[in-house]
């Protein structure tokens, strides 16, 4: 299955953010979306999620245009992991994860025994079962990110789209989330995430998509596309490249 944006013009009613964008994501692959602030990453993400209508062009999901899916049908195929937020009300972690099951019930239904079983199994998968009855507002930022990932997985989607999943995390949790992203692709999900750190893209993504001022600069295998020249062009900044002598792993340093 595919999510595919064709010749997209993206933006808001009073503002065009990007033009002529083609982007595709298949199940089983991880795509990282990189680019400077204000370059259109989040706008493109929301357009692919169906939260924002493209101003021109078309987003297709499988063999149909995305806007032919109902909100509920869409939520059973694509899950969205927003940037971590605190939340207004102190729902328990279990309730937050159960909200991921909403699209599987009808307008009036409450979570069923099956929904609870799914919620508990995803909590277990991320090793946070112990948090189930804690208020979501009282756990750490890293734990919240895992809870939101668990909620997305509880939707039983084919695709998971994450907005800067590592932005507010400490070093250890960043690695943990990268590993989870790899594991999601291995279990057959298509994963799209935005990031400010090319190293995260190198670590977790199969492909990288570079976006500057609403224009695609490059789209290809992460290991090829993410090189010093491309990153210099993308961020208009000087960048050092480090290579591990033993493993051959590559990393970049800004400045």
């Amino acid at each position, binding site marked *: 299955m595919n999510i595919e944006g064709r010749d997209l013009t993206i933006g*808001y*009613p009073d503002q065009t953010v990007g033009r002529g964008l083609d982007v595709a994501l298949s199940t089983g692959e991880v795509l990282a979306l990189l680019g400077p602030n204000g370059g259109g990453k989040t706008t493109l993400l*929301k357009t692919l*999620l169906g*939260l924002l209508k493209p101003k021109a062009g078309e987003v297709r999901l499988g063999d149909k245009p995305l806007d032919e899916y*109902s*909100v*509920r049908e*869409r*939520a*059973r195929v*694509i*899950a*969205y992991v*927003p940037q971590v*937020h*605190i*939340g*207004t*009300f*102190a*729902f*328990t972690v279990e*309730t937050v994860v159960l*909200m*991921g099951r*909403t*699209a599987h*019930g009808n*307008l*009036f*239904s*409450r*979570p069923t025994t099956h929904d609870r079983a799914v919620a508990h199994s995803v909590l277990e998968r991320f090793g946070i079962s112990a948090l*189930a*009855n*804690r208020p979501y*507002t009282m756990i750490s930022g890293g734990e919240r990110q895992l809870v939101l990932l668990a*909620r997305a997985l509880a*939707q039983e989607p084919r695709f998971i789209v994450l907005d800067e999943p590592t932005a507010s995390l400490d070093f250890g949790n960043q690695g943990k989330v990268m590993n989870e992203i790899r594991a999601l692709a291995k279990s057959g999900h298509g994963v799209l995430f935005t990031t400010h750190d090319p190293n995260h893209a190198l670590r977790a993504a199969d492909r990288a998509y570079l976006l500057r001022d609403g224009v695609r600069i490059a789209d290809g295998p992460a290991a090829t596309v993410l090189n010093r020249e491309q990153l210099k062009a993308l961020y208009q900044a000087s960048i050092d490249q480090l290579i591990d002598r033993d493993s051959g792993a590559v990393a970049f340093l800004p400045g």
Partner: protein
Amino acid sequence: MTRSALPGLAIAIGVLIAGLLLAFTIGRYPVSLAELGNVLLAKISGHRPDVSPAVESVILQVRGPRVLAAALVGAALAVAGTAFQGLFRNPLVSPDILGASSGAALGAVVGIFLSLGVLAIQGLAFVGGLLAVGAVYVIGSAVRARDPILVLVLTGVVVGALLGAGVGLVKYLADPYNQLPAMTFWLLGSLAAANASDLLPLFGPVAIGSAVLVALRWRMNVMSLPEEEARSLGVATGPLRVAIVAAATLTTSASVATAGIIGWVGLVVPHLSRSLVGPDFARLLPTAAILGGGYLLLIDTLARTAAEVEIPLGILTAVIGTPFFIWLLASMQRTWS
């Protein structure tokens, strides 16, 4: 540390029972608990009670309708406040926020000004409330903005101010000897005039509005997340918001039509209920309804008995509500994003 809803619910029920007992027994004509039990048991079993007819009349004809009206109005305002707070993702909003109360107030003072009957005045209050919210909604949706909720709330404030000016104009034009006192009395909120014939037009809309909200309880949990998140979880936020606003306005308008403007109940009670049973609407809505009924019963009993003359309800709820709001605002600063 999973929290069972039972202790919180038990407290709410305790407040309601205390409210009921005090409301029936305290007053210019004190009634003992034994007499109250006797009359109520007799009423249920169909026997004649062995108390004086005066006591029976105080319990059944004088206080009975007022007690039921207070419980219903309190429940209605609390349920509407719970729904609005969830929908607007803000624990500081209340049913007044979308112009429901001010629309109903304008409808009622126009009815008094035109010297209409009680039922017609209630009807106008009701229509005024629904029209005001409808107008706020249409204007709020027509203004294109990235934060539709904020626009809606601000539109409610602005339209409410205009309706308040309308109320002022009608009061200015009103006959100062016959009409103005009635308007003032009504605008301050009171259950003194509640009688048995008020109960059905109050109960119907409150029951319908609450039933809709209870049916949507799980979706309301999801609706309290940011708009885009709720949609990505499969909730069609637009139509659902209309349904929730309509249901909450229905219960608000019905209670305003019966008892006038009683502010703050819809702000204070949902917050207290949330601290009792947590934010899940499946528990929160029934708890708020029960606690709201008990809360207004206690306040109404205080209004009847605290002074020589009856104190308007709106004044008492404001005296309690204002410091509560300030305390809430101060303690919220840390967690409210």
